[in-house]
């Protein structure tokens, strides 16, 4: 099993519903967020191009945060989801330094926190909260190992990119372009 997410940058309107849903679902402390929306404008008027991306932890196949963790608090669970065990985390910040996406933050309680793909929902057969609430249905989620899954189907049909592939992390959040 290999969980992955695909986000359609052509459909996303940048409403930030995914951000609020995540903060509510995961009780994210005020002033912090596990996902966020980036508006990228390239070119100069009148030749401009706009891309809107809902970003989060990429749950990398080659996760630098897991490699550099001195205690094993950062680990990979079934389905390739990168998780943090708060009671093993010493708050050294190595994983935060190692993430090319700046997807991790230091929780006010001291441990490091991040997107979990809403693992507590996945184990019950659900989908991440952000995917569930998206009003434009621009987010797809599922198992890459199953060719019939929503995410495998859309990635087979559409052109996509991942963020900073040159960082060698093999990210598993795909952006449809």
């Amino acid at each position, binding site marked *: 099993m290999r969980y992955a997410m695909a986000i359609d940058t052509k459909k996303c309107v940048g409403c930030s519903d995914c951000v609020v849903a995540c903060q509510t679902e995961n009780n994210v402390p005020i002033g912090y967020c596990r996902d966020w929306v980036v508006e990228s404008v390239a070119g100069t008027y009148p030749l401009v191009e706009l891309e809107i991306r809902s970003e989060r932890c990429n749950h990398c196949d080659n996760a*630098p945060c897991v490699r550099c963790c001195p205690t094993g608090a950062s680990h990979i669970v079934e389905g390739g989801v990168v998780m943090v065990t708060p009671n*093993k985390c010493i708050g050294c910040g190595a994983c935060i330094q190692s993430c090319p996406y700046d997807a991790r933050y230091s929780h006010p309680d001291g441990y490091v926190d991040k997107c979990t793909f809403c693992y507590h929902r996945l184990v019950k057969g659900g989908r991440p909260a952000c995917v569930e609430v998206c009003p434009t249905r621009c987010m797809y989620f599922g198992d890459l190992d199953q060719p019939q899954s929503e995410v495998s189907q859309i990635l087979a049909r559409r052109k996509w990119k991942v963020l900073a592939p040159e960082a060698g992390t093999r990210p598993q959040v795909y952006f449809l372009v």
Partner: protein
Amino acid sequence: MKEELFVSGRNIPNIDPHLNIWHWQIPLYLFLGGLAAGLIFFAGLYTILNKEKEFPTAVKLASFIAPPALVIGLFMLFLDLKHKMYFWQLYTTFRIESPMSWGAWTLMAITPLSFIWSASYLKEVVPGWDWKNKWLDRFEAWVIGHRKQLAWIQVVLAVILGVYTGILLSAFNARPLWNTSILGFLFLTSGLSTGAATIMWMSKNHTERKVFGRIDFLLIVIELFFITHMLMGFQASTEVQIQAASLFLGGDFTVSFWVFVIVLGLVFPGVLEVLEIRGYRIPVAIPALCILIGGLIFRFIMVEAGQVTRYLY
């Protein structure tokens, strides 16, 4: 032109607008760790070479600086942890891929060793010292009998410690300024250089001072060579590393890097040491202090500037 905006209003403390998760404690620790590595290395080296008599400061007196340096350094590391009460989790496991795990275990070994090493010379340095305990006396006798073996362990651990202070940073490919394999040896060289400078400063023996002046000069030359190659490597690398190098080549850290690290911390003491070798009388405190301050500032700049650099997408 490309402009990226967080439309969801992201402003996470210590992450945005750029990373600032490691503060003054880390560079101070990197400096103290490097200094201790240098002192322990030279104490071990001259013991292995059977030159305790010719280099009394390196082997005996200066080794007393290493234990407090390591303890203060460890305390700095502890201060920087955000989930402090769980620090013991470091010692429940060994993660071969994590430089920090290597560092934690190396410090666990080298800190008590450096205490034992200094304690075994206490009687020679402090006249009239008495342990007042027969077990401690016996242990001291055992240590004195095994100094050679201890010296070998110390030298190996000191090199690991010195390299580790650099690899701790270079293992993060997400921070392009740190992501160069030369950093481990650059930090080791710098650590050895600060150690040599301290020995040179403390020494009252003319020949020892001269030898350490020469060692230090050699280390300065190697360090300048490594720094040049680091910048050359960045310039010949990808866009993110070219931008990282530009912080030192016209960017925000240009003045602090070239004035404090290169000129004040390396070139100036190097020139003074050459003059000393040529026979001019130079107060040894000046080059020694310059090297120590330069080494400290170098680590502050590297830690701070590295966190500014990141991947672009």
